């Protein structure tokens, strides 16, 4: 494969799991099993697929086949480890710019394809697989929900082009009738509106921002550092609960997600009638 045409997701799959040699054929969902921290982990990426028969899903987006194939890749790991005392870590390499927008996608149930991916990742987490999201590019909206947002731990490269958001900047500007510049300015005061990874970290949702890594051409030392971070996250996830309560426990969450915490506290108080 011509290295200059690789997407970031594909590049990081090769960087982290080249030894796995179990790239699942062609297609938009690639995965490989490879060593991580003394054990074997499954690495999964969504990559561009220029020949995809669904023309609205040929870039690094999550469409019908991507959603169901993500579910398949994750569920295969769950099934293979079902009788094993150790459940392998699953690393979602996140470089997805959106869900696929198309007439056929809606007709054929893209919502269900993406829900199947959500279900598979959540089920893996509940079954004891440490699920880690590694954000190396955009992690946008429904595509991130399907590929990464059910993880026990979320880490990101501190690099141009990594971002998490509910809507692409241009589309968000159109919908809110603002300019892209004023949207950026708004993000500086309204933390959840920001597109930067640093702001995402302030919401308590990011476990580590990995600095000093070339996202497009990582050196061996940089790749090794990322692998160490992933291994550390796997160890933490194994010692933690299998739900997502970890996201509300950091100092950042205590500050920025006070309302989320308050809702849970007061609802619990009122749950049972006196």
């Amino acid at each position, binding site marked *: 494969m011509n290295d200059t045409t690789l997407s970031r997701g594909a590049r990081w799959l090769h960087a982290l799991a080249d030894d796995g040699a179990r790239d699942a054929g062609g297609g938009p969902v690639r995965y490989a099993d490879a060593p991580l921290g003394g054990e074997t982990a499954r690495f999964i990426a969504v990559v561009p697929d220029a020949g995809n028969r*669904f*023309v*609205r899903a040929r870039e690094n987006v999550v469409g019908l086949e991507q959603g*169901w*194939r993500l*579910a*398949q890749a994750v*569920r295969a790991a769950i099934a293979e480890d079902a009788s094993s005392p150790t459940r392998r870590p699953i690393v979602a390499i996140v470089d997805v710019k959106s*869900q696929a*927008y*198309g*007439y*056929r*996608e*809606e*007709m*054929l*149930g893209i*919502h*269900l*394809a*993406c*829900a*199947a991916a*959500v*279900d*598979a990742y*959540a089920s893996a987490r*509940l079954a004891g697989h440490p699920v880690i999201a590694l954000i190396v590019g955009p992690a946008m*909206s*429904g595509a991130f*929900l*399907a590929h990464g*947002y*059910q993880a026990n731990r979320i880490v990101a490269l501190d690099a141009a082009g990594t971002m*998490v*958001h*509910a*809507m692409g900047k241009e*589309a*968000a500007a159109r919908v*809110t009738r603002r300019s892209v510049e004023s949207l950026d300015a708004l993000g500086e005061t*309204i933390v*959840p*509106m920001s597109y930067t990874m640093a702001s*995402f970290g302030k*919401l308590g*949702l990011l476990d580590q921002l990995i600095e000093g890594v070339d996202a497009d051409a990582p050196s061996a030392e940089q790749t090794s550092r990322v692998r160490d971070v992933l291994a550390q996250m796997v160890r933490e996830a194994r010692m933690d609960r299998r*739900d*997502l309560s970890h*996201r509300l426990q950091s100092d950042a969450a205590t500050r920025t*997600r*006070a*309302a*989320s915490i308050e*809702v849970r506290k*007061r*609802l619990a108080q*009122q*749950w049972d009638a006196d």
Partner: protein
Amino acid sequence: MSAAPRDLLRESFIELTARERARAVLDAGSFRELLGPFDRLESPWLPLQGIVCQADDGAVIARGTIGGEPAVVTAIESAFQGGSIGEVSGSKIAAALELALADCERGKIVRPVVLFETGGVRLQEANLGLAVISEIQAAIVALRAHVPVVGVIAGMVGCFGGMSLAAGLCSYLVMTKQGRLGMNGPEVIEQEAGIEELDASDRRHVWQLIGGEQRTATGFADALVEDAVDDVHAAVRAAFACGVPEAHRTEQVEAYLAKLAQIDPASVAPGTMRAAFGSTLLTSRGETA
């Protein structure tokens, strides 16, 4: 259940507010609202953007009983910010489902119902809206191992964005003809892909594509009901009576990949796809492909 002659005196479900809908789904006299308007848990983010808050943030949480069993209903109010999911409204739904899960894990089954009426993430709370939707989804997946999670999409807003994935995760979905279920709303598709992809102003075409009738005929929803309080009330009970499905829709990966493989993207249309995607009515769920 959609075959009964329409009685003009029957009460519309669509015309009800979220609070009235929650009351209508629960057994008569059992409604008890949690975190109601007097608790004044409002969005911390809307005032910073000059937008007036609502005292319940557009989400109603109610305990009560369904068929005599303990239940919780979470209802989204479409009249406030289009039913969009903000930090508080979404956390109310996630927390209610998490508390139901905790009860179920202790052996105390609580029947959960989600009344969807939402365009998805509230853009003014962007990343927190997306985060709480992932938390709602996590709770549904964990909860439905113990008890069916029943979703209702009545209309007229429908169910879109990340919440359409939440609807897809439900054990059973009840829809009216007026309800719509899709990931990207028609306007979004027209904007992103062009009017030749989809003309969002063609209402008939949009409903043929993602309306309740098509969604039940193709197995993406389980029951099609009239816009009547009695019918929704009965369909929710019928769904719980079916118990936890052997395989949830989102677990039927090979079956859905096989269905997709039968589809020719160049020629597929709402009518022709029905051959590959048969209905899965409440009484006949299971692998069909």
